[in-house]
């Protein structure tokens, strides 16, 4: 890629001719718009973009982007995407998936792709529900949540996507509210820049089956006081008055108010997304007050496809085999006359 100057694309260039069929008011529309805005800002050719999904409302996404795409089978998007990337490492590979698709039936591929660190971007539409099948609890549904399959309340303790991802050695994890298109657009651009598997958890509201599950964090009225949007190298400050911040208290994080009890801006922890040690990232992910959004972890390491192709080069350079005929005639062969 690189050398050839890439033509400037617009929103429309990436918009497909398919009628979008999510429920009116669904956050998925916000995600789609943000993506269509972000794609032209990336240094990628349209024909090099591939969207891959499993099954679910969120997995309809590829139909709405005018690029290459596979609407796969339930849970397998990450595995399909791994094959695409290994076949052609020049492609910009995106996985759009849901909390059920990625963490229920797809849980195994999810953790393994993070472990291998292929250079792809996984957008996790976490609405804490199975939308397409009309409302059963998912692995991220809260305890007590009433759904079609938990009429008396859910009794399966949920995963935290970020926590599981770190456990699976994720190198890039970001979280963002489903109602903040501007930040989302920027996140997508940064995720694409990151070399390695980037996981973006979107707090996506399902207006039909789990409406308001995130309001206490994402509602415009409370957002600033309940969300901490972290920036690498910046102090972790939040609140309408920008006067609340995080400090370390033993091995936990504590919220303090700048100006109270002698706390000054200098006391507030600086966010280091690039630090290999993931202990702080782990703590930030698990925090409920404030809920941390933005890029929490972003630590590059050699990608899996780089390891694959570097090793192949090395083997090739040490091998006497150029064509399969060389192989066929190697070792114990004999003539019949």
């Amino acid at each position: 890629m690189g050398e050839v100057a890439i033509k400037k694309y617009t929103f429309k260039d990436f918009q497909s001719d398919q009628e979008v069929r999510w429920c009116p008011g669904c956050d998925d529309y916000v995600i789609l718009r943000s993506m269509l805005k972000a794609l032209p800002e990336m240094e990628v050719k349209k024909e090099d973009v591939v969207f891959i999904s499993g099954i679910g409302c969120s997995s309809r996404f590829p139909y709405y982007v005018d690029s290459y795409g596979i609407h796969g089978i339930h849970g397998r998007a990450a595995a399909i995407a791994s094959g695409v990337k290994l076949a052609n490492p020049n492609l910009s590979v995106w996985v759009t998936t849901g909390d059920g698709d990625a963490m229920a039936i797809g849980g195994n591929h999810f953790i393994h792709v993070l472990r291998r660190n292929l250079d792809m971007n996984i957008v996790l539409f976490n609405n804490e529900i199975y939308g397409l099948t009309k409302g059963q609890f998912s692995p991220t549904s809260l305890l007590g949540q009433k759904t079609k399959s938990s009429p008396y309340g859910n009794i399966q303790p949920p995963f935290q996507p970020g926590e599981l991802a770190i456990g699976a050695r994720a190198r890039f994890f970001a979280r963002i509210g489903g109602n903040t298109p501007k930040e989302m657009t920027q996140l997508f651009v940064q995720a694409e820049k990151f070399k390695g598997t980037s996981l973006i958890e979107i707090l996506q509201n399902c207006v039909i089956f789990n409406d308001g599950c995130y309001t206490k964090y994402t509602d415009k009225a409370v957002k600033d006081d309940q969300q901490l949007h972290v920036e690498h190298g910046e102090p972790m400050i939040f609140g309408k008055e920008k006067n609340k911040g995080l400090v370390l208290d033993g091995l936990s994080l504590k919220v303090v108010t700048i100006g109270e009890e002698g706390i000054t801006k200098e006391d507030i922890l600086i966010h280091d997304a690039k630090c290999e040690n993931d202990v702080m990232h782990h703590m930030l992910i698990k925090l409920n007050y404030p809920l941390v959004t933005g890029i929490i972890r972003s630590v590059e390491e050699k990608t899996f496809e780089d390891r694959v192709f570097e090793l192949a080069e090395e083997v090739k350079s040490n091998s006497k085999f150029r064509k399969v005929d060389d192989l066929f005639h190697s070792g114990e062969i004999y003539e019949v006359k």
Partner: protein
Amino acid sequence: MISEKSKPSEKKVEQVNAVVIRFVGDSGDGMQLTGTQFTDTSAMFGNDVATFPNYPSEIRAPQGSLYGVSGFQVHIGSIEISTPGDDLDLLVAMNPAGLKTNLKAVKAGHTIIVDTDSFTKKNLQKAEYETNPLEDGSLDNYRVIEVAMTSLTREALKDLGLDNKSIVRSKNMFALGMVYWMYDRSMNHTLDFFAKKFKFKPIIAEANSKVIKAGYYYSETLELIPNSYSIAPSTMPKGTYRIINGNTATAWGFLAAAEKSGMELYLGSYPITPATDILHELVKHKHFGVKAFQAEDEIAGITSTIGAAFAGDLAITTTSGPGLALKGEAIGLAIMTELPIVIVNVQRGGPSTGLPTKTEQSDLLQAMYGRNGESPAIVIAASTPANCFDYAFIASKLAVEHMTPVILLTDGYIANGSEPWKIKSIDNMEEIKPRYIDENSDDLGPFDRDNDSLARNWAIPGTPGLEHRIGGLEKNKVTGNVSHDPLNHEIMTDVRAEKVKRVENYIPDLTTEFAEEGDLLVVGWGGTYGSLHSAVRALNEEGFKVGHVHFNYINPMPKNTADIFSKYKKIIVCELNKGQLSFILNGKYKQHDFLQYNKVQGLPFSVTDLKAKFKTLLKVN
């Protein structure tokens, strides 16, 4: 010291045209190496050969235990050899356990060579012998050659100052030396082999050659030894050969297909016996740009393969029975998206985990129907170790030229068995033309089809202007967009079926071997070719009018199938399952009656049993 005058050349030699020999001993006794050396030497001498290894199912069973016996069987001949053979002309048993577990395979009156040093009280117990078979007369029906191989080996090496372990480990070469003498074979190939292999450990090389020679000349001077045999070179076509097993041949067939088509080879696989060796082979060949990806499970194996196919690679996945079951849903996706992938299933004993190290043909119906919906796939089967190469190549060609998944069936018997392969050269192989299109393919789209084959076009990511989406939902025939239209669904269901059916126009006719018409037609498919061929050949030599057809193409079947069936009075379908091909034939060719001969014991057919069975049908005993 062996005096110069007593050269092998002087001994009296009896001509035979084929022999079956089995070397058995502890996992540690090096029986595989011994067998391979004898095989290579015989092949280079010009014999036709077929071999089959028999490893214990335990990784490393305790020394001397019955289930720890490792064996290697080789069948060599001046005539055409098509199986590793049934009954043994010679059994070489390095310990009591080996004797006990293999005795029943030896033809009455034939030869057994034993290492008497290993018949200790302890070893006899481990082999669950109450009395010593060498003494209790239980071997009276055989010609037993008792040799103190261990001591003779020690004797031969006494001056080299080797440690005891290394000394004992080379006693298998003593046995090999004896067998070389018995079958009038030169030791040179093996001597060269050791010289090369231990270039940097000359002492080991020397030790081995000393012991082989010791065994060789010992036989010559030995009283009890019968006269020796010689097997003349067979009349195989001229050319360059190598001994190859089915799994290696399969892997190489894909390498050839990739080079011939100019495509990159992608393998997405998860280890499973007996398919794993294909993965082991392909991971070696990174120099050919092979991307062999060991996935987290079978489902990731095949779905990553589908992704690689979407992106334009020659994409394959390899597995065995239980793994194929796990891939069923994804095969449906490949059928629906019309992406070319090859699924190799090396069949083993089932159901469930079954008999994982044994052979069987019981996955045919799974290959045909093991997924939801009307989901036809191309199904083909290799029939010998060497032609696994050809069918891997053909599977690749059919997939990328017809844009649909191909299931290639082999089995544990041909996967691990070996035979000579007349080395092919890429230049003489058929062309493979993947259906790639690009912006210059005069406005063809990914959903346009070839009129004859009905295969759609292949537009891969990175191609400007051909961006499109595919998926598991039903698609509109023209636009490729998701469609719930009832009639379109019926049309597309027919297109997918017809596309597979029309492959019959691109595959060779079924050919009969031996009697072109007559009293009995023997029908088989896949890995049983060698056994059926041998049995039918034998019957024809005895003057019976018996034909043999063997299916390599199962879905679709060759167009002339019905004609062939109509040329015989009786038809018998022989399978290592309970009648899966028979079931298909009964449904498809109702006008014919199909007798069945089935065996589900984790073992190949016995040629002897086959002949007996066929004779009863020919009303003869």
